[in-house]
């Protein structure tokens, strides 16, 4: 080791020391020295609290520069930055102060601008700076908001509290109660009408009872031998004759049984049996038809909002076959039945329109249904008219359109509405009545229907002769 001189040792020592120093300086100062180059850009912030000189300027998390200087200008903080020479900033970039790391270091984030914009030149200022989320400021704003809310609640308290407010509230409650009373009355009033109809029906049944009673009188008379039929039944002579007749009938039937004579042959013939069978089949079809036969009773009431009227309908829908139906009904319209009278005085004809209030109007229509579409026509509200029904959702929903009361001097009465099945027998409806009226009769309406199938009526009908 003696070969190494003192000078060499010291030289090596100094070399090692300087190399280490140089390496550390280079590593640590790399960014610092690198950033000394670049072009200056400035940006003005409302608040730069926490931002330090030499803080990093980043874009997308990549450092592109450092903060050179922070100074006050017109109450705002003007931050001068040095941006690396290779980085171009568009004219519409946005600068924002962000925080990162556990130590809460502040840095400036540059949000890239639109591609194709012109680039900022050295010394220019970034136009847009995002405001820093300032917690104190936020709290301040919240305080203002709370104050406003309190103002509202206070004024509400003033309005509703106090004697005047209480009086107002009471008035509102009274109004609501009155309203519900009125509604109740309206319902009650129509109830009476309904009751009237039912009593009419009862009267009808009383009449029928009377008819049956007189029938019973007649049979009684017959029983007592009164009148032609009575004598016929009561006379012993006739009875004797009848006996004889029956005896000869007996012999005839015996003969028939034995196949004697024309009838006997007829009865005992195979062909006769076949014919009889066919006849029975015909009767059977007849009965099946009766089974298909359905009747529906429908009450429908609607409130015309613009006229403040309540219109009632009572319909009987007779449906002998699935695709065919007859509609019979009465309509009670508080507006009444309109009649036009032509009066000719001195060669001038004037038309006078009269309304027969409380008068009933009649519906009598026949219709046919194809799948979901039904067409009907006939008498609508005592005038000629046609109607279309369109059914949806398994007949739960029905859209209807009617046109009637065609006249040369006025627009036809058009009516469109929709029914919705709320419960099994209860339907809600809403629509627009007479909507092209020239007399201001147009009105929206809302109403309800009660509709059910009546089996009793059906059997009553099937015992009466059925058309076709």
């Amino acid at each position, binding site marked *: 080791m003696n070969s190494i001189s*003192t*000078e060499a*040792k*010291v030289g*090596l*020592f*100094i070399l*090692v*020391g*300087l190399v*280490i*120093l140089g*390496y*550390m*300086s280079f*590593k*640590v*100062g*790399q*960014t*610092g*020295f690198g950033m000394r180059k670049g072009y200056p850009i400035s940006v003005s912030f409302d608040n730069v609290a926490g931002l330090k000189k030499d803080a990093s300027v980043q874009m997308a998390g990549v450092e592109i520069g450092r903060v050179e200087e922070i100074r006050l200008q017109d109450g705002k903080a003007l931050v001068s930055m040095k941006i690396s020479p290779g980085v171009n900033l568009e004219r519409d970039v946005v600068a924002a102060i962000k925080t990162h790391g*556990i130590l809460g270091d502040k840095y400036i984030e540059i949000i890239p601008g639109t591609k194709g914009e012109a680039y900022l030149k050295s010394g220019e200022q970034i136009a847009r700076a995002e405001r820093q989320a300032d917690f104190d400021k936020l709290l301040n704003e919240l305080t203002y908001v709370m104050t406003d809310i309190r103002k509202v609640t206070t004024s509400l308290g003033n309005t509703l509290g106090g004697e005047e407010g209480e009086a107002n509230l009471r008035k509102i409650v009274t109004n609501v109660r009155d309203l519900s009373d009125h509604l109740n009355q309206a319902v009650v009033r129509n109830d009476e009408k309904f009751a009237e109809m039912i009593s009419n029906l009862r009267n009808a049944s009383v009449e029928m009872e009377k008819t049956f009673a007189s029938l019973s009188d007649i049979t009684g008379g017959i029983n007592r031998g009164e009148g032609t039929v009575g004598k016929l039944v009561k006379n012993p002579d006739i009875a004797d004759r009848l006996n004889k007749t029956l005896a000869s009938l007996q012999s005839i039937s015996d003969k028939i049984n034995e196949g004697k004579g024309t009838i006997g042959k007829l009865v005992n013939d195979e062909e006769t049996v076949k014919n009889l069978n066919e006849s029975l089949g015909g009767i059977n079809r007849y009965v099946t038809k009766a089974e298909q036969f359905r009747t529906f009773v429908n009450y429908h009431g609607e409130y015309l909002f613009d006229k403040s009227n309540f219109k009632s309908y009572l319909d009987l829908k007779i449906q002998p076959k699935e695709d065919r139906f007859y509609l019979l009904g009465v309509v009670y319209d508080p507006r009444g039945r309109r009649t036009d009278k032509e009066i000719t005085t001195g060669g001038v004809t004037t038309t006078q329109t009269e309304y027969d209030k409380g008068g009933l109007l009649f519906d009598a229509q026949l219709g046919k249904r194809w799948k979901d579409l039904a067409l009907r026509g006939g008498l609508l509200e005592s005038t000629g008219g046609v109607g279309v029904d369109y059914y949806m959702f398994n007949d739960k929903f029905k859209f209807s359109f009617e046109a009637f009361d065609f006249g040369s001097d006025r627009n036809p009465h058009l009516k469109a509405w929709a029914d919705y099945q709320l419960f099994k027998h209860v339907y809600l409806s809403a629509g627009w009545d007479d909507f092209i009226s020239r007399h201001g009769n147009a009105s929206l309406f809302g109403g309800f229907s009660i509709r059910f199938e009546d089996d009793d009526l059906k059997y009553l009908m099937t015992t009466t002769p059925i058309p076709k």
Partner: protein
Amino acid sequence: MKRVSETLDNLGRSVLSGVEQMGGILILLISTLGWMFRPPLKLRAIIKQMEFVGVKSTFVVVLTGTFTGMVLALQSYHGFRLFSAEGLVGSTVALSMTRELGPVLTGLMVTARAGSAMAAELGTMRVTEQIDALYVMAANPIKYLVVPRIVASVFVVPLLTAISDFLGILGGYFVGVVLLDINKGIFVDNIYKYVELEDIYNGLIKAAFFGLLLSLIGCYKGFNTRGGAEGVGMATTEAVVIASVSILVADYFLTAIMF
């Protein structure tokens, strides 16, 4: 009464001697500065002192630096783990080493190794009247003995500090990344992020001051040694104690001024 006057006596004497020493040290510094640039420059003597103060202290400084960095990493890791900031271990070690521990520990180690040797060497020369002989030979002992030592120390201690800093950080890296499994990238990145060039250079300036202090005090104590072998031992001890204390005190003031 006698005891009181004795106490006051002692107090006054120690203050006076303290002030006298400080004055003596300052005078030595001034005369050193005066002789330093006066030719001949005596480069050989300076290089010889550099070898003694720097090269021969390298091993001690490497050991202290490395282990200080390692223990710093270990300790700060336990602290930072409490709030999941293990990544900051690197920057903590690097900052501590460059700003504080590198210069101070190097200064103390060099004081212990070289400062004491200076006091003993010069003290022996004084006691054996070699210094007086130099005067007789019209050779200024300050020029021949003190200036090379001080110049060598001022140059060499910062270099030793740089080595100490580097090896301390390396030791911290070893403990942090290899033993404690801190993410390598985060560890290194945090060093680059938080350590500034200023930190390193201010640490080196401090180290230069410490080098000046320890060599100046060592030379002063050795130069003013009185009374035989016992005096040489006393001078050595005092040189080490005073130099160490003044390094720590000066460290505070230098830090306050520079950072």
